[in-house]
């Protein structure tokens, strides 16, 4: 019991917080009690060993990196109380911003979507032509207020005629048998293909198209994001153009 009382003073003794009288009493006990002395000794060694831990030198570039980060924050207008915002917030905000911009662009651009040249669809549903042909005057024949605009994928290919043959056989196997792909050759180096693809074959179509050429499917992705409900068949347009061909599409609608 007495030993416990002395033990409770060990930390205060270690920190030099005992009165001279308390210290003297404890020292006297430690000289007499081996058990307490061992415990005291162990505690003292624990404290001493911590104070002798080797000291590391920080990397020499540390302050330079911090200053560079502060400059970067300043450029991005992030200085100020944002320091205490969570680390994930900038990324989350960025993701939300990208999503908003994408949706906004889809809303704004789709009724009059334009690339940098023109292909003309003779069925009055869209206009497109190669840049070398008629430029944008024809292309403005859009149908405003189209109810369900069909997204367009632009497929850029190296060898147009070869890619055209490959596409024909691939599309035959992949598209909805009830609706054969309609293919319109709009110039010697551009073709517009309308097709309906069953939802379950859509990924396969994308894989196959990626094999044939460089595919820009951003409009399709935006369309799918905006209409997440599962459809049985997806209507899409594939604009096939030769590499380097400058194309512009004005408004695609049904």
């Amino acid at each position, binding site marked *: 019991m007495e030993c416990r009382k002395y033990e409770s003073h060990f930390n205060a003794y270690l*920190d030099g917080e005992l009165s001279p009288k308390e210290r003297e009493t404890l020292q006297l006990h430690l000289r007499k009690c081996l058990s307490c002395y061992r415990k005291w000794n162990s505690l003292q060694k*624990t404290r001493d060993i*911590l*104070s*002798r*831990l*080797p*000291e590391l030198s*920080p990397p020499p570039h540390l302050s330079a990196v911090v200053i560079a980060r502060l400059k970067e924050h300043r450029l991005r207008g992030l200085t100020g109380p944002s*320091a205490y915002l969570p680390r994930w917030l900038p990324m989350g905000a960025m993701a939300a911003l990208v999503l908003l911009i994408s949706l906004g662009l889809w809303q704004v651009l789709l009724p009059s979507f334009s690339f940098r040249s023109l292909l003309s669809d003779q069925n009055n549903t869209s206009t497109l032509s190669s840049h070398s042909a008629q430029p944008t005057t024809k292309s403005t024949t859009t149908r405003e207020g189209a109810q369900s605009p069909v997204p367009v994928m632009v497929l850029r290919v190296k060898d147009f005629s070869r890619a055209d043959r490959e596409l024909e056989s691939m599309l035959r196997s992949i598209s909805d048998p009830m609706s054969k792909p309609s293919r319109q050759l709009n110039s010697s180096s551009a073709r517009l293909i309308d097709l309906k693809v069953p939802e379950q074959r859509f990924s396969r179509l994308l894989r196959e198209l990626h094999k044939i050429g460089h595919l820009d499917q951003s409009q399709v992705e935006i369309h799918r994001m905006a209409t997440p409900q599962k459809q049985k068949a997806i209507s899409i347009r594939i604009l096939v153009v030769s590499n380097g061909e400058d194309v512009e599409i004005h408004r695609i609608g049904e």
Partner: protein
Amino acid sequence: MVQRSRSVKREEEQLLVDRCRQGDRDSFAQLMKLHEKQIYNFTYRMLGSEEEAEDLTQDIFVAAFKGIRRFRGEAKFSTWLYRIALNQTRNRIKYLSRRNFFAKQSRRAQYREESPWENPEFLADSAPTPEQLTLTKRMAAQVQECLDQIPPQARQILLLRDVQGFSYEELSEMLSLNPGTVKSRLHRARSALQKCLGDKLE
């Protein structure tokens, strides 16, 4: 022991702080130089990894610069800086724990003894004192292993008091605890470390 920069007078430090508050990054670089070693050693002992310690130290100083307008000089700058350090460290430990970092770290600990001396300055000392020599490489690794094993709250108070040498008053201010609580937490932390080190001290 990590020596805090006592040589720099509080007024000089306050001058640098005042300049920093006006957005002077060069003054902040000077201020950083005064404290980076202590903060880096603290974060290293808290996380047990040099890479993580470097990242965390950077974050602490970035946060300090951004929040420096809130420092009104009522407390010592180091006390204020450590409050930020403690907050950031707590958040980083939570973040790393979720990613199982400490479990992986303890598996790596067995190789720590094989790593080169962590402290080149220590080796470079041509005439090390007997006290320095007593803490062998093996012992330092064992102490770090034990520090890694005790709860972060206990680890931080041990490091602040027994490694960094802060007073109870300063600890009380940093941790927003009354001095009695600081003492009892420190005593429990010492006991936990003592228990872990056990026979190694004999």
